[in-house]
């Protein structure tokens, strides 16, 4: 069995996540198969694409349900960017989309500053700088970190979601992924 399952939702670019995992010595497989998602030691829900097509794919394949069951069983899940946002209940994106609903909260279109919010920014209180590329952001009471006043990490039970792209955040991102992989 691979160390990590990277959940496929038809958006394509999972290459960078897998390359970062390989650099850390972790094997990975890209799939939307529900039983593989339920059984894997670690699951990553990556972040490229649009909310509507991602949710359609996750619902059709049964991956969304497998992720909910996995979450209820305490299985570790890391959501990245859109992958974090999909774990919430609803999103304003694409005219309104219902998410997987692992955590209470919603996703709104940002209006402060330059949007999309592009580039490297420090995350409080973690004190690390990561790469961001997003137009939407999370509203959630499970916030554990912010950046420029935006919620950039949410955590509840075995789910951790981050708005930044650890796979695109150089050495800092690799260290972050390494810590996620060693988390019980």
């Amino acid at each position, binding site marked *: 069995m691979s160390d990590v399952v990277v959940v496929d939702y038809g958006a394509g670019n999972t290459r960078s996540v897998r390359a970062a995992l390989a650099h850390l010595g972790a094997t990975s497989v890209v799939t939307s198969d529900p039983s593989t998602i339920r059984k894997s030691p670690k699951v990553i829900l990556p972040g490229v694409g649009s909310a509507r097509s991602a949710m359609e794919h996750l619902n059709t394949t049964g991956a969304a349900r497998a992720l909910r069951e996995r979450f209820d069983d305490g299985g570790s899940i890391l959501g990245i960017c859109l992958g974090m946002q999909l774990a919430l209940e609803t999103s304003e994106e694409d005219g309104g989309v219902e998410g997987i609903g692992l955590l209470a909260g919603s996703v709104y279109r940002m209006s402060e500053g330059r949007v999309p919010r592009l580039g490297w920014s420090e995350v409080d209180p973690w004190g690390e700088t990561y790469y961001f590329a997003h137009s939407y952001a999370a509203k959630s009471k499970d916030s554990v970190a912010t950046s420029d006043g935006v919620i950039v990490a949410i955590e509840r039970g075995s789910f951790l979601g981050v708005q930044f792209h650890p796979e*695109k955040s150089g050495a800092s991102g690799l260290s972050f992924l390494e810590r996620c992989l060693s988390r019980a």
Partner: protein
Amino acid sequence: MPLPRLIPCLDVANGRVVKGVNFLGLRDVGDPVELAKHYSDGGADELVFLDIAATPDDVATMTSVVAQVADVLEIPFTVGGGVRSVQDAIRIIESGADRVSLNSAALSDPTLITAIASRYGSQAVVVAIDAGDGVVHTHGGRVATTTKTIPWAVEAAERGAGEILLTSIAHDGKREGFDLALTAAVRGAIAIPVIASGGAGSAAHVVAALRIADAALVASIVHENPSGLPGLRDEIEALGIQLRPLKERP
């Protein structure tokens, strides 16, 4: 606001890096993968690959380069030059690029911007504008169109572009500094970020651009000494612009 970004730009033709690079110290002088890795390790915040040959066959060649680059790079990168259709964009992004840059293809069919943005999000679409005498130019800056620069930047943003890569043709390659007035005028007219391009000859030039724009594109200033990127970063920081902190890889 995110930190300002320093973005080396690599010109690629037929899968090889061409022109302007002093390849001293690199094993394979034209290998985009090795040079990308080198710049990434040297502290680039992002990279841009521009396919300057851009024949139809090049998308296939570029796709293979993109996949190899994505396997070794842990920073974001943009690919432009040969992207003429949604299909081209899909191939480039699904091979591992973070963003595509559209230039003349977006001018001839602006709906392309919206089509790619609705599939991958605005952050995945850069519109490159080669500007001179108030109008947009095509064919590497050689042919003037009747499209005015600022209205085109506004339209591109409205159609879903996530960033403007703004090159001043008059300043490009001269290494005498960026066109700060043009950069400020375009950035002031839109709410998406702007990459200033054309004219970087010193750290002071880059600093002046980064006080106005969200990012600065650099080419010959880094290519003539690929090992000098960390030094350039230090100079920029010494002049008062904070860049991202660099860490040791695990």
